[in-house]
């Protein structure tokens, strides 16, 4: 199903990706023959055991890692180098230690040469949304882990990119904040039609947010299954959690991940 070559109208196309890292010490196959096509406007969530190559996959799409073999395309153009039509939330917050929270968010605007006033307004909205109000000027080392992650999130959202690649963006957040962020991200996705690929360890999050959930195997990372999420496009947290379809899918995923990870 996913081995078809990238065709017109595909937001992200990956075909037969293999990635081997080799150093003097050892050789690691991070991804093995991964193919996946993502339509514009899809919200694909990726779950899989630690070290299976999820981050590597996102970096390949962003053009930050070159696959050993295979082809990637983004917005119908082959990926040859770093891509800029994206918003990337890295697994580590990757903040500039010499800039305050707000300045770190606005880095996105400065690097892209965006309109200053508009960017500033948007930054303020995002700061408000992520509950960072009052910490606009705090330097990264003065922020808690979760706050740093939220700053990185704001930064990736600032320019309303057509494609969002998110590597465990909510990992350091408490349950409630996480739910709020999930809801916000869901809203943004619905309203803008952004294509999103999100890596997460939370099965609930994967199901609540995704239109499709991709499950990867332990190293070497392969796609072992793709679940379409048969929930309405417009979702409400409490509603979804009590939905039986949610329950069923979550149980399926849990089972699959358990078994997938068992031979690890």
């Amino acid at each position, binding site marked *: 199903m996913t081995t078809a070559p990238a065709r017109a109208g595909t937001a992200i196309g990956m075909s037969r990706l293999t990635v081997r890292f080799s150093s003097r010490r050892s050789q690691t196959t991070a991804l093995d023959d991964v193919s996946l096509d993502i339509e514009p406007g899809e919200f694909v969530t990726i779950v899989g055991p630690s070290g299976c190559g999820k981050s590597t996959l996102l*970096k390949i799409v*962003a*053009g*930050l890692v070159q696959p050993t073999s295979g082809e990637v395309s983004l917005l119908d153009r082959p990926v040859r*180098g*770093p*891509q*800029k*039509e*994206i*918003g*990337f939330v*890295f697994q*580590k917050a*990757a903040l*500039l*230690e*010499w*800039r305050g929270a707000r300045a770190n968010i606005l*880095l*996105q605007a*400065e*690097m*892209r*040469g965006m309109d200053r006033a508009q960017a500033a307004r948007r930054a303020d909205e995002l700061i408000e949304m992520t509950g960072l109000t009052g910490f606009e000027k705090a*330097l990264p*080392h003065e922020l808690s882990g979760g706050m740093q992650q939220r700053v990185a999130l704001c930064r990736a959202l600032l320019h309303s990119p057509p494609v969002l690649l998110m590597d465990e963006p909510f990992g350091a957040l408490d349950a409630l904040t996480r739910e709020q962020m999930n809801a916000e991200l869901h809203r943004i996705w619905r309203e803008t039609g952004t294509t999103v690929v999100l890596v997460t360890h939370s099965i609930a999050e994967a199901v609540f947010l995704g239109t499709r959930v991709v499950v990867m195997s332990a190293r070497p990372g392969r796609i072992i299954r793709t679940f379409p999420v048969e929930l309405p496009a417009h979702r409400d947290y409490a509603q979804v959690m009590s939905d039986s379809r949610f329950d069923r899918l979550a149980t399926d995923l849990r089972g699959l991940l358990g078994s997938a990870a068992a031979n690890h």
Partner: protein
Amino acid sequence: MTENALDTAGRQADAAGAPAASAATSSTDGSSTVAAPPPGVGGRPPRPTLGRRALILADSLWRPALVLAAFFAAWWFVAAREYVPNYLVPTPGQVWATMTDQWSELARHTMVTLYETVLGFVLAAALGLAAAVAIAYSRTLDKALYPIVLFAQVIPKIAIAPLLVVWFGLGLTPKIILAVLIAFFPVVISGVAGLRSTDPELLDLAATMGAGPWRTFRKIRFPNALPHLMAGLKVAVTLAVVGAVVGEFVGASEGLGYVLLLANGNLDSALLFADLILMSAIGIVLFVLVEIAEALLIPWHASRRAGVPLTTS
């Protein structure tokens, strides 16, 4: 601000507010973040009062002052008791007399050398940074430029100073070329080290923002390289003085290097020492200016952060 910038203690207190109520840990490695002012203080903490600031200043100055005093005492003792003959090491009094007697002359020479030094340093900083950027960014330029830069560094300047004077005359040019040649290398080396030490994650980030090399340089690599670079600039500024002096030494009719030559030729040790003191003063003043610039430019850096253990001892 200025006196605080000179003073780690001042900055620390500024950044972390007043000291904690409980006794500070004294272990050198005991990393202990001092959190906030004691309950009583409350409110907005910043801006130490004038009294406190004076105290901070005094605290930051007494140690160097003590060292200086000890130095002068030792000098005076050695010279006045003639443990070392006066024509080698004059007494502080003799030097002082020379300084005051010939003050206007010496001031003029000092200004000349200062001018050459500053010009040389600024040029060296600019060229050094440019070379560092070229080397750090392009592998081709790295391989091609590095040998040249290295070669320019390892040739003893005293040996080529006469050549420079012969080629460029007795004017300002050879002095500035020498200052640049001497001060250039530390800037390049530390610039390259700094630019290369950028966290690859941050470069990845910049790449996904579609930023061109210039923006990435300006917003990420350059600020990241600053702590390294400042170390290079500190070395460079002291060397620039040496460059200017060597240039004057070889052929000039003004400047402290020229005075050095005269003093040496006449075995006028008081003048020699007065001259050395002025040269050192130029070096120290410029060095301190670079330190102030550093404090203003990279207050965010770990080395200047409040509660970093090495400043709590």
